[in-house]
């Protein structure tokens, strides 16, 4: 591949017009654990696999789905440490916006600012792009919203999306199952079924994580017990 000669430096375009490092970052994302998000008529649900490297790991200490503001949550596929850095920056930006305008930050604004940070790391010296894609779920005055942000810094609004290992199967499944007038509960069931599709082993409340936000505009992560209840409904 002629491109490989140009893959050493992030800030150099290859002859085909690609930035190879970003392609590699997307590959890193593609080998991460599956995560997905679904926008319902009255809320948004995001979910991810939580496969721990060993049974000895205390799974209660790992939380992949994080809250950015009371009404915006986020999940990722890719490198966990990179995710932590982005979450920290996004929270600070949301708080700064709130300090300045005395208004909770709209979802689009937060996504835009996070994407701007990710883009910065594709055009600066001595740094590498983030190895994560984010799914941002929020509920503000414009209703429920779901955005995907890529390592390049581009972002899209989705009705339903998936990322990570099982992305093509998951997206096909979602395309078949998605309806515009879905309720939040239906969306949770669909999310669970989608995760189940590519899941190796027994699915339970301990090895998946689900976050929801409804018309109350409060993002929260479901407890393992609540997830088990949903799983029982799905069976």
């Amino acid at each position, binding site marked *: 591949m002629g491109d490989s000669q140009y893959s050493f430096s992030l800030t150099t375009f290859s002859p085909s017009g690609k930035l190879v490092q970003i392609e590699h970052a997307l590959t890193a994302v593609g080998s991460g654990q599956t995560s997905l998000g679904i926008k319902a008529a009255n809320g948004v649900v995001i979910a991810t696999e939580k496969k721990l490297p060993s049974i000895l790991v205390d799974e209660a200490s790992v939380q992949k789905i994080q*809250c950015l503001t009371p009404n915006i949550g986020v999940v990722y596929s890719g490198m966990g440490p990179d995710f932590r850095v982005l979450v*920290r920056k996004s*929270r*600070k930006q949301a*708080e*700064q916006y*709130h*300090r300045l305008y005395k208004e909770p930050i709209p979802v689009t604004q937060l996504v835009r600012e996070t994407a701007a940070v990710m883009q910065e790391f594709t055009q600066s010296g001595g740094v590498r792009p983030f190895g994560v894609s984010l799914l941002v779920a929020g509920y503000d005055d414009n209703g429920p919203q779901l955005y995907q942000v890529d390592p390049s810094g581009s972002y899209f609004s989705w009705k339903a999306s998936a990322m990570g290992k099982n992305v093509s199967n998951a997206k096909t499944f979602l395309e078949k199952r998605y309806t515009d007038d879905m309720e939040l509960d239906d969306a949770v069931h669909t999310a669970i079924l989608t995760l189940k599709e590519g899941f190796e082993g027994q699915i339970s409340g301990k090895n998946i994580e689900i976050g929801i936000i409804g018309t109350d505009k409060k993002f929260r992560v479901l407890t393992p017990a609540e997830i088990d209840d949903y799983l029982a409904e799905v069976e």
Partner: protein
Amino acid sequence: MLANKGVNPPSFRKTGTTIVGLIFQDGVILGADTRATEGPIVCDKNCEKIHYMAPNIYCCGAGTAADTEAVTDMVSSQLQLHRYHTGRESRVVTALTLLKRHLFNYQGYVSAALVLGGVDVTGPHLHTIYPHGSTDTLPFATMGSGSLAAMAVFESKYKEGLTRNEGIELVTEAICSGIFNDLGSGSNVDVCVITKGGKEYLRNHLQPNPRTYTSSKGYSFPKKTEVLLTKIIPLKEKVEIIEGGDAMEE
């Protein structure tokens, strides 16, 4: 220098103020008056001096109103970020340390005297913070120009293990003492009760200074400037008129 010629710089808005706090058996009660002054003038008859820091921590502010607002707002923001990162409820000592470090950095130029109170996992806490950055930890505290009047009430009537109603009554009495005996304090009493279960912000809990006399007929003011004398002088007769020509050099 200008003061010699009788021109004084504008005085900034201070909160004059009586602010108090006390610890009772279930938590902390904070109280404040609601008068804001600009020198000798009352510029706000019902301002809010009890500021939100965290769901379980509130802070009363005396001194320059802009300073107390800005500093409590900033620390409240920092506490929110800290809560996200730690996943835990904020502690009063955290707010205390963030405030005192900031005030010390500015060597007293940030003129904010605060009474900080809240309930966290380690129990109820009450602190006073001075503009230069020193702090005290007390079971009952007062700050502001009315602090002596309020402290007199506390010193004679405070005891440990007060109930909620006794506490609110004592706080109200102390603030009223400031309102009526201190010129820098006045208007209404605000109270905030914080316990382990939650908080109750009693805005204008007591209004001992209502506007009592308003004329039902309304007030009639003269409708325009009074005309005392009418004298018309046609200026053409008084002044030399140059027709045309360049009126002014460019």
